[in-house]
C-alpha cells in the first residue's frame, strides 16, 4: 500500500478529533512562541548594543584613560604630534527611563564610514556645530526626547535607535563635560612617523572598544533571566505536545494494527507518522513565530525601559523582524516536536505486526522509569548543591537553578507515588481505597503534566518571592534613603547658594546633594558629597561600618561606598578607595543601594568640593514637616522663580521610584502567568489522553455500583488532589529558587544581596489557582464521563481485550 494512502488514513484521525489537533498545534505554537519571543527580545537588545557602538567607532581601537576622561588638550597634542585620532565624548541625556545615550563627535576627523560622521552634518554644518547646535536621533528616540530641554532634535531613519549624535562641542556642553573627552578613535591611516604614545600621553592606553560586549556583559543577568524563562516556558509547552502526540498515537493504535495487517511496512508507517509530525511542526512553528513576535512586541517596550533605566543601555521599544529569528523559531518547533514525538515514533516503529492494541501499555511503561527518575533527581540535586558551594558567576548560578528545577521535577512522580501509597494505607472504605490505588496507577500518565505544573508553580513562587522581597526591601530602603521631605534643583550655583541662605534664615536644614560622575575603577560611577547631619547619621542604610563612621566621613578621612562596589571590588570597612583626584580614602562603611548597578562613593561635601571644584551645586534636600513641603515649594517658586518641576516632594519621589520598580518586573510577571497557563493546558491534555484509555478500568467499578456521576466526581477530585499535592511539593522548590535568586543571582548580577521575606498569603492564592486550573482541566473529561452512554461501558466487557 502506498505511502500516500497510509498518510491519508493517519490524517483522517484529525478530522474526527479537531480539538486534539488544535491542542497539539496550540501547545507547540505556545512553546515556540514563548521561546522565540524571548529570543527576539534578547536579539533586539543585543543588536541595539552593537549598533550603538559601531555608530561612532566602527570596529576601530580607541585610546582611553582607564577610569577617567581625556583632557581635550591631550587630543590636540596627539594630533599635533601626528597621531590620527578622532575625539568622542559620550554620556547620558534625559532622565531615568527616558535616558538616551549621546555621542558627541567631530565630523571633520571622525572615521568616514561611521554613521555618526555621515549624520552629524547632514543638515548643514553651521547649524550643527554652532550654538545651540542640533541633535540627531532615530524617530523613536527623537520622539522620546521631545519635551527635554535640548537643542532641536532631528529625526533620521537611518540612525540606530536609542542614541543621539551631536557635534562634540554641543555634546560636551549638554553633558557638562566641557574640555573633556571620553575616548579617541584611532584611525586606520597613520603617518610615517609618530612619537610613542607613552611620550605624548602617558596616561592613555589603547584598547578595543567593544560596546556590544561591554553592554552585553552588563546586561547578561537580565538576558539570562529572560532566556531561563523562555526555556522554562518551552519545556512546559513541550509537555503539552508530548501529551497530545501520546494521545493521538494511543487512539490510533487499532488503526496502526489494521494498516500493518493490511501489509503496510513498519517503515512506511513510521515515515508517514514522521511526515505528519513534520507538517504539524511547520504549521505550529509558523504560528508560534507570529505569536512570539506579538509577545515580544508587547513586552519589548518594558524590557527596553528596564534596560535603559536599570543598566543605562541604548535600546528602543521597537522590534525588527530578523530572518535568522524565523529560522530559529521553525527549528526549535521541529526540535520540540522531535523531542515530544520521539518516544511515540520509536514505539510505533517497533510495534509487532499483530500486537494487540493495548492503550494502557503506554501509561504503564512509566512505572519502571520511576526508580531511574528518582536516582537522576538525587544526582541533579547533588549537582545543584555542589554548585552552591563551588560555583561562581551567573552561568553557574543559572546552571544550579536549572539542576534544582529538573531534580525537583524528576523527584515529583516518586514522591507523589509514595504519598498516595500512604493515603491508600489510611483508606477506610473500599471506594476510597480504590480511589487512591487508581490515582496512583494514573500517575505515570499524568506525571509529565504534573511536572510541568510543578515547574510553573515553583517558578511562580520563586520569582514572586524574589520580587516581593525586593519590593519590601526597596520600599524600606527608600524610606531611609529619601529622608528629606523636599528635593530642589536650582538652575545655577548662585541660585543654589541664595536658596540655601534663604532656607537657613527660616531655620530649615538644607542638605546639599552634589555629585560628580566619575570613573570608579574603570567603570562608570558617581561620587556624592553629603553634609554631616543627623539625617544621614540616623537614616542612611548602612550594611557594614567601622566605628565613628560618620565622624570619619565628616572629617574628610573616609568615604562610604555602595554594596555593589564593595562586592565588585571586594572592599570592606578599613579598605581604601581611590578617587580620580587626590589621595585614596579609607572605606568607613558600606550602604545598600538598590536599583543602581553602578559604583558609588559618598564623601563629605567639603571633600567633594575640594577635589572637584567644578561640581554643580544645584541639588538640595530640605528637612521640613511633610505637610508643609508643598507650601514651602510654592514659596520658593514665588521667591526665586524656581519652576515647580524642579522641586519634588518625598512622597512623589517614592511613588516614582516604586513605579519604576514595578515596571521593571512587569515582564517577569507576564512570563510567569503565561507559564502557569501553559501548565494548565498540559494537565488538560493529559487528562483527556487518560480519559479515553481508562474505560476498561472504570467499567468494572461502574458495574459494581458506582454511578457515572460519582465516578465523574471522583475523576475531578483526583485532578484536584494531584494538583494540591503538586502545589505543596512546589513550595519548597519555589522557596529554594527564591533563595538562589536573592542570595546568588542578584549578587552576581547586580551586586546586592536581598533579605528573603516569606509571603504565605501568596502561596495560598497560588495553590488555589493551581487547584482551580486543574479543576477546570479535569472538568471536561469528568463531564464527558458523566454523560457517557452506559452502552459504552457495557461494551468494555464484550471486548476481548
Amino acid at each position, binding site marked *: 500500500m502506498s505511502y500516500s494512502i497510509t498518510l491519508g488514513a493517519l490524517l483522517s484521525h484529525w478530522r474526527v478529533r479537531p480539538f486534539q489537533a488544535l491542542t497539539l498545534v496550540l501547545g507547540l505554537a505556545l512553546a515556540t512562541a514563548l521561546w522565540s519571543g524571548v529570543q527576539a527580545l534578547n536579539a533586539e537588545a543585543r543588536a541595539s548594543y552593537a549598533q550603538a557602538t559601531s555608530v561612532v567607532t566602527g570596529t576601530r581601537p580607541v585610546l582611553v584613560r582607564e577610569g577617567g576622561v581625556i583632557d*581635550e*588638550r591631550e*587630543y*590636540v597634542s596627539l*594630533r*599635533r*604630534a*601626528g597621531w*590620527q585620532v578622532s575625539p568622542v565624548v559620550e554620556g547620558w541625556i534625559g532622565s531615568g527611563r527616558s535616558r538616551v545615550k549621546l555621542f558627541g563627535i*567631530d*565630523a*571633520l*576627523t571622525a572615521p*568616514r564610514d561611521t554613521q555618526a*560622521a*555621515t549624520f*552629524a*552634518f*547632514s543638515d*548643514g*554644518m*553651521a547649524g550643527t*556645530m*554652532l*550654538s545651540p547646535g542640533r541633535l540627531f536621533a532615530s524617530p523613536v528616540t527623537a520622539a522620546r526626547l521631545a519635551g527635554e530641554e535640548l537643542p532641536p532634535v532631528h529625526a533620521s531613519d537611518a540612525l540606530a535607535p536609542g542614541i543621539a549624535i551631536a*557635534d*562634540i*562641542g*554641543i555634546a*560636551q556642553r549638554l553633558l557638562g563635560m*566641557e*574640555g573633556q573627552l571620553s575616548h579617541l578613535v584611532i584611525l586606520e*591611516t*597613520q*603617518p*610615517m*612617523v609618530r612619537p610613542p604614545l607613552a611620550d605624548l600621553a602617558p596616561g592613555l592606553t589603547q584598547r578595543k572598544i567593544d560596546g556590544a560586549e561591554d553592554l552585553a556583559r552588563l546586561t547578561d543577568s537580565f538576558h539570562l533571566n529572560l532566556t531561563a524563562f523562555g526555556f522554562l516556558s518551552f519545556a512546559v509547552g513541550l509537555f503539552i505536545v508530548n501529551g497530545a502526540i501520546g494521545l493521538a498515537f494511543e487512539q490510533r493504535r487499532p488503526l496502526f494494527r489494521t494498516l500493518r495487517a493490511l501489509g503496510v511496512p513498519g517503515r512506511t508507517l513510521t515515515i508517514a507518522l514522521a511526515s505528519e509530525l513534520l507538517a504539524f511542526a511547520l504549521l505550529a512553528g509558523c504560528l508560534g513565530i507570529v505569536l512570539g513576535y506579538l509577545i515580544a512586541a508587547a513586552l519589548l517596550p518594558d524590557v527596553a525601559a528596564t534596560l535603559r533605566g536599570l543598566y543605562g543601555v541604548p535600546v528602543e521599544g521597537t522590534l525588527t523582524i530578523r530572518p535568522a529569528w524565523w529560522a530559529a523559531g521553525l527549528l526549535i518547533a521541529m526540535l520540540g516536536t522531535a523531542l515530544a514525538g520521539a518516544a511515540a515514533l520509536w514505539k510505533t516503529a517497533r510495534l509487532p505486526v499483530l500486537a494487540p492494541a493495548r492503550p494502557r501499555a503506554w501509561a504503564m511503561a512509566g512505572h519502571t522509569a520511576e526508580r531511574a527518575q528518582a536516582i537522576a533527581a538525587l544526582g541533579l540535586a547533588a549537582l545543584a548543591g555542589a554548585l552552591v558551594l563551588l560555583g561562581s558567576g551567573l552561568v553557574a548560578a543559572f546552571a544550579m537553578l536549572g539542576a534544582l528545577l529538573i531534580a525537583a521535577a524528576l523527584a515529583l512522580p516518586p514522591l507523589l507515588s509514595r504519598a498516595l501509597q500512604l493515603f491508600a494505607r489510611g483508606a477506610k472504605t473500599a471506594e476510597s481505597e480504590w480511589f487512591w490505588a487508581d490515582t496512583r496507577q494514573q500517575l505515570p500518565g499524568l506525571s509529565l503534566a504534573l511536572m510541568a505544573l510543578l515547574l510553573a508553580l515553583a517558578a511562580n513562587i520563586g520569582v514572586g518571592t524574589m520580587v516581593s522581597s525586593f519590593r519590601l526591601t526597596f520600599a524600606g530602603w527608600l524610606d531611609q534613603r529619601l529622608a528629606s521631605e523636599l528635593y530642589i534643583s536650582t538652575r545655577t550655583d548662585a541660585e543654589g547658594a541664595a536658596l540655601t541662605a534663604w532656607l537657613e534664615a527660616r531655620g530649615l536644614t538644607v542638605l546639599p546633594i552634589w555629585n560628580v560622575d566619575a570613573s570608579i575603577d574603570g567603570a562608570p560611577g558617581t561620587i556624592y558629597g553629603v553634609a554631616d547631619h543627623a539625617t544621614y547619621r540616623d537614616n542612611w542604610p548602612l550594611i557594614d561600618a567601622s566605628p565613628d563612621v560618620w565622624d570619619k566621613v565628616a572629617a574628610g578621612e573616609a568615604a562610604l561606598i555602595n554594596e555593589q562596589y564593595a562586592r565588585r571590588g571586594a572592599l570592606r570597612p578599613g579598605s581604601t578607595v581611590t578617587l580620580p583626584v587626590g589621595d585614596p580614602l579609607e572605606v568607613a562603611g558600606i550602604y545598600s543601594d538598590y536599583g543602581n548597578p553602578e559604583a558609588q562613593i559618598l564623601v563629605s561635601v567639603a571633600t567633594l568640593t575640594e577635589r572637584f571644584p567644578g561640581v554643580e551645586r544645584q541639588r538640595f534636600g530640605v528637612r521640613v514637616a511633610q505637610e508643609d513641603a508643598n507650601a514651602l515649594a510654592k514659596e520658593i517658586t514665588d521667591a526665586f522663580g524656581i519652576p515647580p518641576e524642579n522641586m519634588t516632594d518625598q512622597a512623589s519621589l517614592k511613588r516614582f521610584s516604586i513605579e519604576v520598580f514595578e515596571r521593571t518586573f512587569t515582564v517577569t510577571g507576564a512570563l510567569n502567568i503565561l507559564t502557569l497557563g501553559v501548565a494548565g493546558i498540559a494537565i488538560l491534555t493529559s487528562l483527556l489522553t487518560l480519559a479515553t484509555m481508562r474505560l476498561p478500568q472504570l467499567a468494572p467499578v461502574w458495574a459494581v455500583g458506582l454511578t457515572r456521576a460519582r465516578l465523574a466526581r471522583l475523576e475531578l477530585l483526583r485532578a484536584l488532589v494531584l494538583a494540591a499535592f503538586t502545589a505543596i511539593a512546589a513550595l519548597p522548590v519555589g522557596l529554594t529558587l527564591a533563595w538562589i535568586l536573592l542570595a546568588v543571582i542578584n549578587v552576581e548580577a547586580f551586586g546586592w544581596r536581598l533579605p528573603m521575606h516569606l509571603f504565605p498569603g501568596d502561596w495560598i492564592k497560588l495553590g488555589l489557582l493551581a487547584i482551580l486550573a486543574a479543576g477546570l482541566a479535569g472538568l471536561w473529561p469528568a463531564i464527558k464521563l458523566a454523560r457517557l452512554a452506559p452502552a459504552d461501558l457495557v461494551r468494555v466487557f464484550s471486548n476481548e481485550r
Partner: protein
Amino acid sequence: MNARRWFIRLILSLWAVSASAQVFGSIGPSADGFAQPDPAYRLSFPADHGPHPAFRIEWWYVTANLTDSDGRNYGIQWTLFRSALAPETGEGWSSPEVWMGHAAVTTPDLHLSEERFARGGIGQAGVKPEPFYAWIDEWRMEGPTLSTVRMTAQGSEFSYDLQLTADMPFVMHGDAGYSVKTPDGQASHYYSQPFYDVSGTLNLPDGPAEVTGTAWLDREWSSDELSGGFAGWDWFGLTLDGGERLMGARMRNAGGATAFSAATWIASDGTVTAFPDGAFTAAPLETTEVAGREVPVRWRIALPARGLEATVVALNDHAWMDTSFSYWEGPVFVSGSHTGRGYLEMTGYE
C-alpha cells in the same frame, strides 16, 4: 551633505567651480556678514600673513619643484585652507572656523597625497603671522618670518622636511593685491612669494632623497562665491629659467572654453606686471585618462605681451589629488619661447 563636501563647496566658492551656480544659491555674495575684498585695502606684513577671520575662505598654498643630486625631478605641495561658518573667531569647539590641509609628493612615476581636517578654536590648526607659524596636526610651516620657513608634512607613505628661503619681496597680484576673478568684478586679496630657494629631504617609499629647488607660495582670501556657470579653473605658476615668474590662470565654462583669464608677470628683479582678461591664453593639447576622467596634461600657453609662447607638460600625468575635494595638482615643464618649470592646478574635471 557631509562635512567634507560642505567644506569643499566653501573652498570652491572662491573660484566658483561648480557646474551649477544654483548649488550655491543658499550662500549669496556678501551674505552672513563676511567682509568683502576692498580695492582700496593695502596689504601690510606680517599681519596679512596671518588669518583674516572676517573673510569666509583663505589659503596658504606652497608648491615646489625639486631635484636630487642624480637629477631626478620631484614636486611637493603643502596647503592649508581656512574656512569660516561665521565671520568671527572663538575659543573651543564653538569656534566657527575649520581647517583643511593637503600635502603631496610627485615624482615621474609616483604621486602620493594626504589630507587633514581640523576644527578651529582648539589649537589643532592655525596660523600666526610672526614669528610665522602655520600648522595643522603635525604639519608645519615655521620660521622667524614667512621669508624663512621650515616646512614639514607627512602621509602614511611619504614625508618631507624642507627649508624655504626668499630674499625678494612678496608679489601683489592684480591691483596691489586686489585680484579680479570674473568678468563682473568679483575678487580676492591675492599675493605670492614665488622666489623661494628650497633644500631639504624627501622620504619616499624607496628611501630618502636630498633635494634642492624652488618654491612658490600663494596667499589668497575672500568671501565671495563667484557668479556664472564656471566649470573649473586651470592655474599655472611657472618659474622660468631666465629668472622670471609667471602666474597665469583661466576660468573655464561648461564647454571648456576660457571665460576669463588673468596673469601676473614677475621680472627676475621682482618687478610685477598684472595683465587684464584675455592677455594670457591656455589651450589643452593632449588629454589623458586620470582617475577615470579626461584631464589635459599638455598645454599651449601664451602671453604675447611678453613674447611667451610655450608648451607645458606634466612631470607625472597622474598627479591627481585623491582627497575629499579631488583635483589635479602637479609639477610641469615649460618649453618653447621660454623654458622652465612650475606647477599646474586643474579643477572641475568631473
